[in-house]
C-alpha cells in the first residue's frame, strides 16, 4: 500500500526539469468517467523535441491521460477532467482556450489506422484545407508532398495519390495518418499505440520515422511494448492503476527503476 502512495506524493507536485525546456506539463490531473476515477493526481512534464513513452499494464489510464493533452476526451460525454494541464505555460482547460486550435497544435495518431474514406491526396490535404494554410493549389500540392516525404510514404504512393487511402496496407495507412497529422504542422504529436495493429516490418518503419520526427516535433507515444519504449523514447512514464508511478530518462527507468512496481513491470513480472 505504501508503494502506491509514494508516487502520489512524488508526482502530484511539480517535479520540474531544470535543464530542458518543458512543452507540456500536467499537475494534479484527475480524470473521471462518470463515477470511475481513471486518472489520479498525475503530475508530469513532457520535454520539447523529445519522445516520451507512456508504459503500463492495459487499463491503467495511458490512453486516457494522453487524450487529456489535446482535450480529445471532450468528445466523451461522461468524461470529466480536473487539474492543471499546460501547453507552453498556457492552461489548455481554460475557458478562453479554443479547443479546435489546440488540436491543430497537438496532433494525434490513433491505435487503429483511421484514414478517411477519401483519396490519399485528400487525406493529407484535409487539415491544410480546414485551416486555410495553403493559398493555392500549388502550395497545397507542396504541403501534401512534403508531408508524405517526411512520413516516408512518398515513394510508395506518389503515382497513386488519387486512389483511396483505405486501400493501402495497414503500415502504409498508419504512415498516411502520421503524414496527415504532420500536414497541419503541429507542435506536439500524440500517438496511442500506433504500432499495435502492425506487423514487425511496418513497426520498424514507424519507429524509425518517430525518431526522425523528434527533431521537429514533441512526441508522446503510448506503447505496450517495453522494447519499443526503450528503442524510441528519451523519457518514459510508467502508469499503474491510474497513477503515475515513475517518470524519468528512459535509460534510468530501464536500468535503475526507483520503484519496485516499475521494476516488476519492466522485468515482466506482471503486465
Amino acid at each position: 500500500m505504501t508503494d502506491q502512495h509514494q508516487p502520489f506524493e512524488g508526482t502530484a507536485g511539480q517535479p520540474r526539469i531544470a535543464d530542458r525546456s518543458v512543452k507540456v506539463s500536467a499537475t494534479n490531473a484527475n480524470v473521471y468517467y462518470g463515477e470511475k476515477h481513471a486518472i489520479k493526481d498525475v503530475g508530469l512534464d513532457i520535454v520539447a523535441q523529445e519522445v516520451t513513452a507512456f508504459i503500463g499494464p492495459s487499463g491503467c489510464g495511458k490512453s486516457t491521460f494522453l487524450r487529456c493533452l489535446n482535450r480529445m476526451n471532450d468528445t466523451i460525454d461522461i468524461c470529466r477532467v480536473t487539474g492543471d494541464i499546460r501547453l507552453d505555460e498556457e492552461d489548455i482547460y481554460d475557458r478562453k482556450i479554443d479547443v479546435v486550435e489546440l488540436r491543430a497544435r497537438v496532433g494525434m495518431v490513433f491505435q487503429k489506422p483511421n484514414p478517411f474514406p477519401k483519396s490519399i491526396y485528400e487525406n493529407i490535404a484535409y487539415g491544410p484545407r480546414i485551416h486555410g494554410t495553403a493559398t493555392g493549389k500549388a502550395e497545397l500540392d507542396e504541403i501534401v508532398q512534403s508531408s508524405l516525404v517526411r512520413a516516408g510514404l512518398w515513394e510508395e504512393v506518389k503515382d497513386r495519390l488519387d486512389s483511396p487511402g483505405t486501400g493501402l496496407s495497414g503500415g502504409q495507412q498508419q504512415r498516411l495518418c502520421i503524414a496527415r497529422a504532420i500536414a497541419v504542422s503541429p507542435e506536439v504529436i500524440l500517438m496511442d499505440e500506433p504500432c499495435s495493429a502492425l506487423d514487425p516490418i511496418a513497426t520498424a518503419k514507424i519507429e524509425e520515422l518517430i525518431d526522425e520526427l523528434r527533431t521537429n516535433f514533441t512526441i508522446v507515444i503510448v506503447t505496450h511494448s517495453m522494447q519499443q519504449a526503450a528503442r524510441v523514447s528519451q523519457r518514459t512514464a510508467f502508469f499503474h492503476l491510474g497513477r503515475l508511478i515513475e517518470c524519468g530518462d528512459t535509460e534510468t527507468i530501464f536500468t535503475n527503476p526507483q520503484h519496485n512496481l516499475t521494476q516488476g513491470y519492466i522485468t515482466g513480472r506482471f503486465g
Partner: protein
Amino acid sequence: MNTLILVLVILALATLSYVVGTRRSTGLVDNKPKDLHSLPGYYGLYVAMWCGVPALALLALWTAFEPTIVKHMVLASLPAQALLDPAGGPLSDQRISLMMTDIANTASGNISSGASQSYISEAAVYQRSLTDTGYWLMAAVAVALGLGLASLAYRRISPKLRARNDVESGVKYFMIACSTVAILTTIGIILSLLFESYRFFTQVPVTDFLFGLSWSPQTAMRADQVGSSGAFGAIPLFVGTGLIATIALVVAVPIGLLSAIYMSEYAAPKFRAFAKPALEILAGIPTVVYGFFAALTVAPAIRGFGETIGLDVSSESALAAGLVMGIMIIPFVSSLSDDVITAVPQAMREGSYGLGATKSETIRKVVFPAALPGIVGGILLAASRAIGETMIVVMAAGLAANLTANPFAAVTTVTVQIVTLLVGDQEFDSPKTLAAFALGLVLFFITLLLNVIALRVVRKYREQYD
C-alpha cells in the same frame, strides 16, 4: 367433413409419437441420457417428424388437387346432351363453368338456378359422394401413413441413431419449403402481371401506352354507346406520379436528413431515445389517415393560401398530396440516415477532430461523405415508397389525367388509375381492365429498379467498414 379435425388428429398423433419416442430412447439406455448420441427430446422429435410431416403433406396435396379431380370426374359423368348448347354446338367454357358452379351449389345444399335440370341434381349427388368417399379414404391413408412411418421410426431408435442430425436436416428442409412458397408466390404474381399485360398489349400497342400523351380509359361497352374508344397513353400518369414523388422528396429529404444529423451528432442521448421512436411513429400512421388529412386540411389550406395571393389553385392539387406524402416518408429518410451516420466509426470523427476540425466541419467533410451511400439508399427507398403510395393521392390529388408540371393543378398517378380502373364492375378482358395490369407492371419495374439500386448502394457502403 372438416379437414381441420384431420389436422388436429394428425398433430395429436405426432405429439403422442414425441412422448413415446422420448421414453423409448431413455428406456434403451437405462435412463442415462449420456449414452445416447443425441438428447432424448431429439428422438421424440425424430419420431414425431416422421409421423406428422408426410401425413400433413399428403393432406395438403389432397386439399390442393381434390377439387380439380372431382370436377373432371363430374364433368365426365354428365350426359352428352348437357354439354351442347341449344343450337347444337358445344357449350362455351363460360357456360360450362357456370354449370359446374350450379352443381357445386346444389351439392352443398344451396339453392341454385339450375337445380331444375335432372342431370344437374344427379351430378350433384355424384359430386357429394365423390367428395365424401375421397375424404374418408384420404383420412384413412393419412392416419395410416403417419402411424406406419412413426412405428418404423420408433423401431429405428437406438443409442447410436443420430437423431439430432436427422431432426436438423428435417428443419432445414422445412425452411427450404417455406422459402420456396414465398418465391413461387412472387414468381406467380410477376407471371400473372406479365401475362395480363401481354393481353393488354395485343389490344393496345406498347408504344401508344408508353409514349402516348393522353389518358382516358373509357371504352364503349356497347357498339352504339356514345363515348370514346379510349386512349391509353400513360405519360400523364407517370408525369403526375413523378411530380408528386418529387414534391414529397423535396419535403422529406431535407427534414429527414437534418433531423437525422441532429439526432445522431448533436442530440443528448435522452432526447434521442425519445425523438427517434417519435419520428418513426409517422411511418406507423395508416395512410388513409394521411389521406383525409391531405384532402380535408392541407388541400383547402393551400387553395385558400393560393387565393389570397391571387393564384388559381384547384381544390385537389399535386402540392397537397406531395406535401403530406413527404411528411409520411420522413421517417424512411431519417431513420435509415440516422443508422448509417451512427455507423460511421467514431475513429473517423476523432481523426478529424485531431486535425483541428470543428464539429460541423467534421460532419460535412468526413461523416456525411462517409455515410452518403447509405443516405442515398434511404432516399431511394423513400422514393420507391412515394411512387407506390396510393391512398393519399387517391384522396388528395384527384383523378384528372392532366399532363402538367404545375404543382397547383390536379394530377393523377399510376396507382390512382389502377384503383379507378378496377373499382366497380368490370369486364375482365376489356382493355380498360387489362390496362391496370400494364400500369402495375411498369410500376413494379420502376420500384424494383429503385430498390435494387438502393440495396446495392447500401451494401457497398457496409463493405467499406467491415
